[in-house]
Structures are given as structure tokens and as C-alpha cells.
């Protein structure tokens, strides 16, 4: 019976990752490109404009909005138009990326990994008997060393996340001052 249940769970996981997840991803991308079902021109244009950073939209948003409405009204509304706007918008976003923001992103990612999976989740798993250690560092240790590692991960992880958020907020404030 347990083999049948395991097989059933495996099948469900396969269906989720091979079928449902790609379908959901495609639907999400179509929605982000302003091509979700039921979207009118207004909603579509609004979706497409979101690809651009706020600073760019403040300067040129109205003009691009008018251009998109003209293009859609003229029957030029196809996937190529959506992809073109998305590509250009992402290009504008990437042009605003600075070394400080990249550092803040790396710190946030590292900090979150230490704080949550390697810290909080590991602290719960340590209390469950028979858990395989897999990628949880603390579970490969024994005794007091486990809790020392978990405490270290939580404290350092939280500090990194806080520092990254502060770095990001300062960069945003600097941009607002110089804009």
C-alpha cells in the first residue's frame, strides 16, 4: 500500500513539474506581456509599460502609452510588439543596475539562504528524528555544534538581509535626489 502511495505522489509531482509548471509559466509570461485572456487595450498597454523602470516611465511613459495605443488601434498588436517592448523595457531596467545594487542583491540572497533554510528550517528539522541531512549544514553536525551553527546562520543571515535592504534604500534615496 505504501508503495502505491509513493508511486501516486511521484506521479503527482511529475505532472506538476512537467505539465502544470510550464503551463503556469507560459500563462504568467503572456500576462506580463499584456496578452492575458480578456485584457483590453488599456490593460495591455498598462502591462507593457510596467517593463520599464519608474524613472523612465515618469519621463517618457505618456508618449510611449500614446504610441502603443496608436499601434494597437492600427492593428499592429502582435506578439512581436509585446516582446519588443518587454526587451527594451528590461534593457532600460538593466541600465540602472549599479555595482551597489548587485552587491545588495548578492547579500540579500546569501543572507536569506543563511537565515531561513539554513537557520529557521534547520532548527525545526534538528528536532525531528530520522531526517536525512541533505544540504542542511547543521544536520551534518552533532550536539552543541548543531545549535551553534543554527544560531550563527540566523544571526549572520539576518544581519546580511538588513544590511542589503539598507544599502538598497540608500541607493534609491540617492537616485531620487539626483533625478
Amino acid at each position, binding site marked *: 500500500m505504501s508503495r502505491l502511495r509513493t508511486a501516486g505522489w511521484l506521479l503527482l509531482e511529475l505532472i506538476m513539474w512537467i505539465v502544470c509548471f510550464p503551463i503556469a509559466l507560459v500563462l504568467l509570461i503572456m500576462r506580463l506581456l499584456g496578452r492575458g485572456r480578456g485584457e483590453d487595450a488599456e490593460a495591455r498597454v498598462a502591462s507593457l509599460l510596467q517593463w520599464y523602470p519608474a524613472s523612465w516611465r515618469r519621463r517618457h511613459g505618456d508618449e510611449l502609452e500614446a504610441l502603443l495605443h*496608436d499601434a494597437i488601434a492600427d492593428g499592429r498588436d502582435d506578439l512581436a510588439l509585446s516582446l519588443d*517592448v518587454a526587451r527594451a523595457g528590461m534593457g532600460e531596467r538593466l541600465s540602472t543596475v549599479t555595482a551597489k545594487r548587485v552587491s545588495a542583491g548578492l547579500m540579500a540572497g546569501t543572507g536569506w539562504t543563511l537565515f531561513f533554510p539554513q537557520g529557521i528550517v534547520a532548527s525545526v528539522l534538528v528536532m525531528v528524528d530520522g531526517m536525512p541531512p541533505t544540504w542542511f549544514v547543521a544536520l551534518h553536525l552533532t550536539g552543541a555544534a548543531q545549535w551553534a551553527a543554527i544560531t550563527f546562520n540566523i544571526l549572520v543571515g539576518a544581519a546580511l538581509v538588513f544590511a542589503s535592504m539598507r544599502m538598497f534604500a540608500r541607493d534609491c534615496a540617492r537616485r531620487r535626489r539626483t533625478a
Partner: protein
Amino acid sequence: MAEHIDELGRYSGPATLILSSLAEAPKHGYALMQDVEAFAGVVLRPGTLYGALTRLEKMGMVEALPSDGRRRPYRITGAGAAALEAQLASQRRVADVGLRRLKARGVLA
């Protein structure tokens, strides 16, 4: 300020088309799209058009005029006209050489 359209990298092609269109008269975005498609047969989509237009504006080759509703016309500046002339002269040299060599091979009539 930059003087050469080539400095725009992958936007240099669209920039040449946009400046050629604006050399006639100031235009807003959609009028630019239509004019470029009419004289060059190239469809400049909104993302590419505004990518080139905003870069041309930063380089001082075009300037924005007061908005007409939500549409904002752009016009070519003196620097833009000079850069366009240089770019088209360079392209003409290449075209002349290419056509002459094809003719010499007997490929062209």
C-alpha cells in the same frame, strides 16, 4: 557630446532611420514609425523606436518639442543633422564600392 551614430551600437540602424525621417519635419512616435516603414520598408516597433529616440536625445541629436496631448513630437538638431550626413556619406561609400565590385564581376547589369 558624441558625434557618431555608430556609438549607439545596436541602435545605430534605427537611429539613422529616425534621423532621416526627422530630417523632413518634426514628428511624434507613431508618425515616425509610419514614415520609416513607408520609405525604408522597416517596421520600427515601439520598444526599439523609443530606445533609439531616448538615446538620440541624450546625445543631443534630437530634441523634444512641447507635447501635443500625450504625443510629444521630436525634431532633429544641428548636431543630429551633421551626424546623419556623416553616417549616410559613409554608407554611400560602402554602397558605391559594393555595387562597383558586383558590376565588375558581371553580377549586375
